[in-house]
């Protein structure tokens, strides 16, 4: 049994149980991607997973479940106060969402299901699952469901400074936030040069899938996950405020920021081939586009 504050909108809403359930799952997944993907995007973690024995993987899985259980108990990804065994069930769901997210990421990057043994898949998922499942489990706090840049507080400084209802100024502000989010992540990844190893590991033919997953996840984070006034965002009249246009534009901005940072740190230069530049930019844009989405939600 679980309880909700009296007078709060009931969730799941009567007659909309399935869509609300889907909404909670997508919110959890989006939060898991936001927190976990930068961690997953380190090749040392992949190699550590490769060397894992299956029993070690099970131990890590159990450890991740305990961590997730604690996070679900205090924060969670569903509305309402969950009690008793429901908390244990929610933690299992968070863990399962993390497994699905990791299977999608590793599959798109050609790191499982592409001739690798099952033990490799289990090892990599086990090593990477804790940050992703924790991300799922703290979805309610990562970005509050009802707080929104599309519906800011009356005293919100950014809203007052920018004139929140001015569509063009808002659009510029959001694009700048996307660039800032992408830059924040690029500055964490590019200097350590994990990207060179990841570039060597990911098959070239998988790069279009990486682009598609980047677009799908960033769309889910901003428009389909129930974060931050999603309904109002869908009907906001800004210049790039159609979901498709905003998602693609933010992705292109993340890609541009990636190229700049790669060039600044000497990872690409005038002698780099087009294929090398394309490969590095697309792979780096995968986590950077998620950070860009987080940046848009954070302002």
């Amino acid at each position, binding site marked *: 049994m679980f*309880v909700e504050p009296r007078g709060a909108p009931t969730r799941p809403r009567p007659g909309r*149980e399935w869509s609300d*359930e889907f909404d909670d799952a997508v919110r959890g997944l989006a939060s898991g991607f936001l927190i976990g993907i930068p961690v997953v995007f380190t090749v040392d973690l992949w190699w550590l997973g490769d060397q894992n024995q299956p029993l070690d*993987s*099970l131990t890590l899985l159990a450890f991740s479940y305990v961590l997730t259980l604690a996070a679900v108990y205090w924060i969670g990804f569903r509305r309402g*106060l969950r009690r008793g065994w429901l908390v244990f*069930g929610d933690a299992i769901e968070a863990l*399962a969402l993390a497994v699905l997210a990791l299977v999608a990421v590793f599959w798109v990057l050609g790191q499982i299901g592409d001739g690798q043994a099952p033990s490799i898949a*289990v090892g990599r998922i*086990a090593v990477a699952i804790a940050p992703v499942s924790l991300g799922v489990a703290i979805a309610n706090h990562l970005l509050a469901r009802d707080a929104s840049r599309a519906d800011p507080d009356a005293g919100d400084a950014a809203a007052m400074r920018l004139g929140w209802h001015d569509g063009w100024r808002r659009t510029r502000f959001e694009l700048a936030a996307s660039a800032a989010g992408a830059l924040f992540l690029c500055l964490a990844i590019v200097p350590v040069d994990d990207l060179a190893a990841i570039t060597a590991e990911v098959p070239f033919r998988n790069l279009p899938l990486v682009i598609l997953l980047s677009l799908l996840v960033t769309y889910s984070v901003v428009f389909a996950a129930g974060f931050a006034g999603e309904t109002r965002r869908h009907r906001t009249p800004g210049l790039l405020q159609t979901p498709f246009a905003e998602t693609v534009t933010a992705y292109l901005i993340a890609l541009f920021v990636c190229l700049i940072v790669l060039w600044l740190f000497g990872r690409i230069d005038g002698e780099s081939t087009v294929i090398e530049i394309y490969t590095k930019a697309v792979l780096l844009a995968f986590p950077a586009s998620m950070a860009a989405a987080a940046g848009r939600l954070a302002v």
Partner: protein
Amino acid sequence: MTGRAARRKSLAEWVTLSLSLLVVGALIVVALVEESRRQDGDGPPLQVTFDTEHATARGESFYVPYTVVNTGSEAISSAEIWIDVYDGERVVESAEINVQFLPLQGKQDGTFVTTQDPAAHALRSRIESLQFP
């Protein structure tokens, strides 16, 4: 429960929980099957196979694809393998290859370059050393 409303779990939530149990259960089953397979493994730790049928000649060199598979019961952090090219019972060429980070049942593809025609010679491998994580 003053000020609060209580309700039961919906069918949708039951379905989600069931699917989640299925996903996590599948991961656990795969790990247990892999552990069982690992404990049963008692063959040589590495297996090297040469694909001489797909060897190509460029100039005076022959490029022979090979695959190294970790068939042992532990992941290998690095391995040194010697490849000998035999003309009858006589070794006419030798070279060393290094393999790094080979997980359980993991495989590493590569190409061995030799000046001897693989169609007329035998290629054999021997393990020089292994390192474990």
